[in-house]
């Protein structure tokens, strides 16, 4: 019998919790009304949306439920936030962000640069940390918005966004955080921060795909991305995806309940997995700021081998993880996050991200710890950069191909 598959790719997406599915199902067939309608079909839905808004508000620690705007995904929330800040403040032309953001931010910023805006990308050190002095020196009156992720999707490294938001607020600059990876994994209390805008994505916390939220602090100047109907107080037109919104509300409620488990049990299993791998295999290391990261994420760089090959062999054993290697993304460059941290190419192509959730068990982690070492040994045996017992004496010199 095939062993049950082990899912360790929860930073990519999560399983929709059965309780969440149960909560949303009636909104397809029974409560199918349009929340804007005056009749009973609509008002039932309206009440459910209000409840969901309150559940999201509670998880984020927002002061008002009207600060929650439902969107279609994290990317929409990110785009809305940054474009809104630029539209609402035409006298400001600069965006500050980081080199390790998700493509939802970076690709948008690259496009904005082409359109003539100024984008400053804060660099990170080899552990993926920001230089706050550099950041402070860039806060001037032409900056429309700062957008810094709360936690990195690849390494789990947490950025000091609350402190950074306070610094921006002192200079009257809007602050947005892409908190897609952080929400539900670490406690958030927005009312006691200076964060103006925050993006979250439902499918990262056991809600379905296709639902996101933009938190917009009351009083923060705003221009909608989608114009049309009066939904979401005119800040995001389009008929509410009621079933998905109800699902997200339920998922947020469950994330609140699971917050302790996430930060104790999930963290323990993550540490066990990481230590189990690092102690058995030579020439590998955990990337990012390991002392300050999400409790569920471990990103390990295996030197002299390539990530996709590792994933394929793991997959054969029913273990699902992800990689920052070039081949899995279809580009020639390995992950921009690994490159930004200065991880050498010999290791950057061989990074594997294990991301856990409250669904994972001790037995699963034990199986993964046992499965990884033979896979790494098998691939290193094939690698021209690896000798009999370790890396070729001088890998770069002993294997110097014709072109680089």
């Amino acid at each position: 019998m095939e062993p049950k598959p082990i899912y360790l790719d929860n930073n990519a997406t999560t399983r929709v919790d059965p309780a969440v599915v149960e909560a949303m199902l009636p909104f397809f067939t029974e409560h199918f009304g349009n929340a804007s309608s005056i009749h009973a079909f609509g008002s039932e839905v309206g009440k459910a949306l209000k409840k969901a808004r309150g559940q999201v508000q509670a998880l984020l620690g927002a002061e008002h439920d009207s600060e929650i705007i439902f969107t279609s995904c994290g990317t929409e929330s990110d785009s809305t936030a940054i474009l809104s800040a630029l539209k609402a403040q035409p006298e400001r032309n600069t965006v500050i962000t980081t080199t390790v953001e998700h493509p939802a931010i970076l690709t948008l910023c690259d496009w904005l640069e082409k359109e003539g805006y100024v984008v400053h990308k804060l660099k990170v050190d080899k552990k993926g940390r920001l230089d706050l002095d550099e950041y402070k020196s860039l806060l001037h009156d032409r900056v429309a918005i700062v957008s810094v992720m709360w936690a990195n999707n690849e390494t789990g490294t947490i950025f000091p966004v609350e402190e950074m938001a306070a610094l921006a607020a002192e200079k009257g600059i809007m602050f947005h955080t892409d908190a897609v990876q952080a929400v539900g994994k670490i406690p958030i209390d927005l009312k006691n921060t200076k964060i103006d805008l925050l993006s979250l994505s439902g499918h990262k916390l056991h809600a379905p795909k296709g639902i996101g939220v933009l938190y917009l602090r009351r009083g923060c100047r705003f221009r909608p991305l989608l114009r049309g109907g009066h939904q979401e107080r005119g800040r995001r037109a389009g008929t509410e995806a009621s079933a998905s919104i109800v699902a997200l509300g339920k998922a947020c409620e469950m994330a609140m309940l699971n917050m302790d488990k996430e930060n104790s049990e999930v963290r323990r299993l993550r540490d066990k997995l990481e230590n189990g791998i690092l102690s058995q295999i030579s020439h590998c290391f955990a990337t990012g700021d390991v002392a300050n990261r999400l409790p569920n994420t471990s990103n390990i760089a295996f030197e002299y081998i390539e990530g996709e090959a590792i994933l394929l062999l793991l997959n054969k054993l029913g273990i699902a993880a992800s990689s920052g290697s070039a081949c899995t993304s279809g580009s020639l460059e390995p992950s921009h996050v690994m490159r930004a941290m200065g991880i050498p190419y010999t290791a950057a192509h061989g990074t594997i991200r294990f991301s856990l959730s409250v669904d994972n068990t001790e037995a699963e982690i034990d199986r993964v710890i046992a499965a990884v070492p033979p896979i790494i040994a098998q691939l290193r045996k094939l690698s021209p950069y690896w000798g009999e017992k370790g890396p070729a004496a001088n890998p770069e010199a002993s294997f110097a191909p014709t072109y680089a």
Partner: protein
Amino acid sequence: MWEYSDKVREHFFNPRNSGPLEDANGIGDVGSIQCGDALRLMLKVTPDTEVIEDAHFQTFGCGSAIASSSALTEIIKGMTLDDALKVSNQDIADYLDGLPPEKMHCSVMGREALQAAIANYRGEEWSDDHEEGALICKCFAIDAVMIEDVVKANDLHTVEEVTFYTKAGGGCAACHEGIEEILAKVKAERAGPGEVSPPPPCPATPEAPKPPAKKLSIVEKIKVIEGVLESVRPMLQRDHGDVELADVQGKKIYVHLKGACSGCMMEAATLGGIQQKMIESLGELVQVLPSSMMPVEA
């Protein structure tokens, strides 16, 4: 996940002829760790017949790179060197029942390793003849350097032409924006500074040009020009540059770009942006040129 054929999977999970080869007399190393693909092909050639008696590989790379290497060694074993040189990357892909389009470069690497190993056996120098740039067209693995060279050499102007000449853009069409950018860059280089007018730097404030009520005197005109330069100065200073008015000759406004702005790759774009602002503020068409282009007085 990629759609790999069963044959690719099989060769990846059970690679043939992997590991070092004792008494190899032809070795080809290609690829690079930067690109995430590197392959060492080792051949044992019988000197009098030039038949490849044995072939082994070591590969750093993804599933299809390892499978392509394995397939290559199986294909060439028993071949004469001359026959082996006729093996194309398509032959390797066909042997594996096809590769995903994005992975065709793995088979190309296999063929290159074969050429390199045979050259090594024959005591020849093998050099790879293409320079790699950023990958633009992922369907056909065409990079920016290749596209730019072909655009320049053949004076191409449209994406369609680029597709005809290089195949780039002929697949999923996702790279058309990238190809358009290369075309625009080459066009800008052909035109030189001053003659191109790139989009204004700050499209967030599109102000329609307001024609002034009456024709400006030369003094009023220079005041407006100075005002425009003053408004862009903070932006340039932030990038450690500066701008200064040099002269106004009819519809030509000459400026000194100073500090980091002089000689900057973005000079043409900067001047284009200033020119746009000048046109809007003056309500007439003017040309903003670097002071280096001022006519020299006899």
